[in-house]
């Protein structure tokens, strides 16, 4: 028997065509693309940031000059701090997009399996990405308060403007405090886990890993990039903590 079926509606002269909701942009893969692109923005930024930090090894003047140059870069074409602000805006927009997509996918995963297995443990990678990601976000807030927005010296012996207004001195004063070193090391562990999977994942999401070989290569690359960034970040704080810089 003939039934009225949605398929036939478009054949009926009385109906207008319904708007197409079937678009590539409305998919979960589009959300992942947003996550991949914004994630790669972070990777690019992290590489530059880690490189800048390594200037601490070259001493106070080199480090503070670099920090100053970041603000005067492009002058007089750009206003003082112009480049820095452009980068900050890109990072903030990326963070919003990245975290939005992460939480959308996270909540979707929750509603896609409401009854948990009795005998299956959730893959560790997945847990690291999500809880590790939240930890990194909390850390980033603390990190900005610490070095950028408020400039907090946690060192009882080194207080006052001559410390907090001097980027190099503030870094040294901070990492002479053991619990600061621990916070930063923990954050770097979480960052390593996040980037190891994230950098691989981004390549996979962008469709760059279309063979088993390319896939394996992308995994190795993820491991390498994560290790490179995290080791570069860890060198200055650990050098200070172990008294190689003072």
């Amino acid at each position: 028997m003939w039934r009225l079926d949605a398929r036939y509606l478009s054949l009926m002269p009385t109906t207008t065509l319904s708007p197409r909701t079937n678009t590539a942009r409305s998919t979960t893969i589009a959300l992942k693309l947003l996550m991949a692109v914004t994630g790669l923005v972070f990777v690019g930024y992290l590489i530059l940031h880690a490189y800048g930090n390594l200037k601490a090894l070259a001493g106070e003047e080199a480090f503070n000059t670099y920090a100053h140059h970041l603000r005067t870069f492009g002058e007089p074409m750009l206003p003082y701090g112009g480049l820095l602000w452009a980068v900050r805006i890109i990072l903030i927009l990326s963070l919003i997009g990245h975290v939005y997509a992460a939480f959308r996918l996270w909540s979707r995963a929750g509603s896609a399996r409401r009854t948990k297995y009795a005998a299956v443990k959730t893959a560790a990678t997945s847990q690291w990405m999500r809880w590790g990601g939240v930890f990194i976000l909390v850390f980033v807030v603390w990190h900005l308060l610490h070095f950028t927005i408020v400039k907090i010296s946690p060192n009882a012996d080194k207080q006052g403007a001559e410390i907090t207004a001097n980027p190099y001195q503030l870094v040294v004063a901070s990492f002479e405090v053991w619990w600061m070193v621990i916070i930063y090391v923990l954050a770097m562990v979480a960052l390593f886990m996040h980037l190891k999977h994230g950098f691989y994942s981004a390549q996979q999401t962008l469709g760059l890993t279309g063979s088993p070989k390319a896939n394996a290569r992308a995994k190795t690359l993820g491991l390498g990039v994560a290790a490179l960034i995290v080791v570069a970040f860890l060198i200055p704080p650990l050098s200070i903590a172990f008294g190689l810089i003072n």
Partner: protein
Amino acid sequence: MSNMNLTLKIWRQAGPQDKGQLVTYRVTDISPDMSFLEMLDVLNEELNAKGEEPIAFDSDCREGICGMCGLMISGHAHGPEKTTTCQLHMRSFKDGETITVEPWRAEAFPIVRDLVVDRGAFDRIIQSGGFISANTGAAPDAHAAPVPKDKADRAFMAAECIGCGACVAACPNASGMLFMGAKITHLGELPQGQPERDARVVSMVNQHDHEGFGGCTNIGECSTACPKGIPQDVISQLNKDLRTAMKNGR
């Protein structure tokens, strides 16, 4: 290897709306050469003899090619070996072992009864785009559209997917991307798949999301669970096809 005694904790659920639970059973004198499903057949005969409801589970070919069977066995989709549940043998277990048996868990695969789930969502994904349109009439000359060997091989590899749903069951996001990636790669590598390529990926992924599967985060549990060893790169292919469709204005 001598015969074995086992403790089974099996998910029992009378119907879609009922609250299920794990029920403990003991089976004795199980031959290591039995398949996992034959072991369940033995248990069901005992339950029948006692006048209890037998355990409902799916199977058809029992030779690893139809994709009908599928159980979560002690936390592994299709059990500890890389094969289907029907091709899993009891020699993969130890005498005295306790085995937990659960259905595939995904909202997109609602439980029908006990260990049986409704995988109609996969059929609807295929209906939405997993096909090619061909004219009827005389078959075209087989040489009319040459296919390079590497593409033919990759298409065959992807076509091995039997639609069992283990990838969804094993995925922490309950995502169906490996299944879809296999179809997209299978058809996308062949000339016959080209005319509908962009429309196919957009329709299939929208249908997938609409069915309530989770989004992929490239964890890789799916390929580990897949009895046919469908690799992660088919998901990359799927993502690439979607990105291309987006670029082409879909």
